[in-house]
């Protein structure tokens, strides 16, 4: 063949080439390869450490704070969500008591308000939040509790919780939803059980 012989990686006046690649020096930086390998291995350990830390955080929050995939996958048509026949029709929003004593709270999120803007629930009672969006992705977060989910248009987000103490809780939208996102929040008012009227018919909304 006419190909010229492949050029030597080292100029003749370079230091003599080592017998093993591990001892070869990087041509441009002059760093021994063994040093590079050691540094690379350390960074691999750092990455594994970051991964394990994230994993441990997830496990901790799942076991001790109760974080989990919050919702059963349920779909809904956001265009007709406010029409009669839909669970999220205007008159059905808010808190209502079920026959088993559970309180169901239906929330509609839209640009830029939650409906209803004041959610009243009794203390120390099983509460089910069901929320959907009329337009874009919103977030539902009740400060001081572990209630936290995204509200995605086309889906119903379901959350179960129980409020341990009475008082007013801030419920801001925590997914950026548009230029008035900063104006979007609601109030959750946790009242003593006696102040939340028991309604065996389940027809009243608060």
């Amino acid at each position, binding site marked *: 063949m006419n190909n010229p012989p492949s050029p030597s*990686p080292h100029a003749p006046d370079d230091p003599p080439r080592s017998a093993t*690649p591990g001892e*070869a020096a990087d041509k441009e930086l002059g760093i021994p390869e063994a040093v590079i390998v050691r540094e*690379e291995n350390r960074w*691999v350990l750092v990455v*594994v450490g970051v*991964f394990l830390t994230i*994993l441990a955080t*997830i*496990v901790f929050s*799942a*076991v001790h704070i*109760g974080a*989990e*995939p919050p*919702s*059963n*996958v*349920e779909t809904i048509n956001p*265009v*007709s969500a*406010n*029409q*009669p*026949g839909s*669970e999220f*029709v*205007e*008159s*059905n929003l808010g808190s*209502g008591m*079920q026959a088993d004593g559970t309180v*169901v709270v239906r929330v*509609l999120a*839209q*640009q*830029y*308000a939650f*409906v209803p*803007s004041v959610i009243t629930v009794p203390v120390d009672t*099983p509460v*089910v939040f*069901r929320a959907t969006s*009329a337009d874009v992705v919103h977030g539902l977060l009740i400060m001081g509790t572990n209630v936290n989910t995204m509200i995605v248009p086309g889906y119903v987000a*379901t959350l*179960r*919780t*129980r409020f341990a103490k009475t008082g007013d809780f801030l419920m801001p939208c925590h997914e950026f939803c*548009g*230029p*008035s996102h*900063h*104006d*979007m*929040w*609601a109030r959750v008012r946790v009242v003593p059980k006696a102040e939340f009227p028991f309604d065996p018919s*389940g*027809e*009243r*909304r608060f």
Partner: protein
Amino acid sequence: MRRHGLFSIHNPWKFWGAVLVASMLVMGIAIGFLWLPQVQERPVFGDRLKKPGGWFASFCRGLGWTGDAQATATAAPPARWASDMQWTPDTVHLALSGDRARGEFVALNCTACHGEKGQGGQQTWIPKLARMDRLVIYKQLADYRSGHRQWGVMNAVAMALSEQDSADVAAYFNSQAQPPLQLGQEGSNPPLTDARFKDAQKLVYNGDPLRHVAACATCHGPSARMTAAPDLQGQHPAYLTRQLGDFAQGHRANDLHLQMRAIASQLSPDEMNALGLFLAQGKGPRDAR
């Protein structure tokens, strides 16, 4: 110097890198889909649903099939809703398909109150229609027709119009010249002082986060626009103020998701008045007085 190809399994960096990434993936899947759903069957808050055991059930819960579907057939109060309007692609297409020339003929019904070419009539509680968005006119006529918005004359007029008539007349008014901005203090009592001007300006462009009042400009323009939210700049101030009052008291309730009722119920009558005057002037966020 490379003794092997980049993706050869004989290259130890690639090989062990792949092994490491794969093991992280396997670990994540095992923890997220198998282990955690099992652990979480222990009640954290006492009211957790009884979840069925089994590895397959765990896997499904990890994917989001929790089986926690709330019965939607629970007792509900009699339905009350804002409007029959559903903005499906077909509806939008129909509302935008109007014939301007035919609309001019339909608009002969409107000039007596809304003025020549929709420029506004003598009565300031009746809106100017020129340049108004086609979807706005279409939706308001539909709501007058179905009775979701109440105003005697308009209910009667709308009932005589078909959906196509509504689209046509919307196309006609949309094509008319922008009515002049209203720089005076018409109907203003008390007058729009500098302080009230600034308050209104702040509500229009920033809203009021402490009262969860969204900024007008983020739905009605110019910052951003919501479907079927009308332009407000240059409108009759008395009309705007009156509509805010009607929304606040629920006399007008045809906003699809209570957007306007939620906002207007937070405003004082004085603010409604100032908002009407400010919007009529069409001032921007940095217009000083």
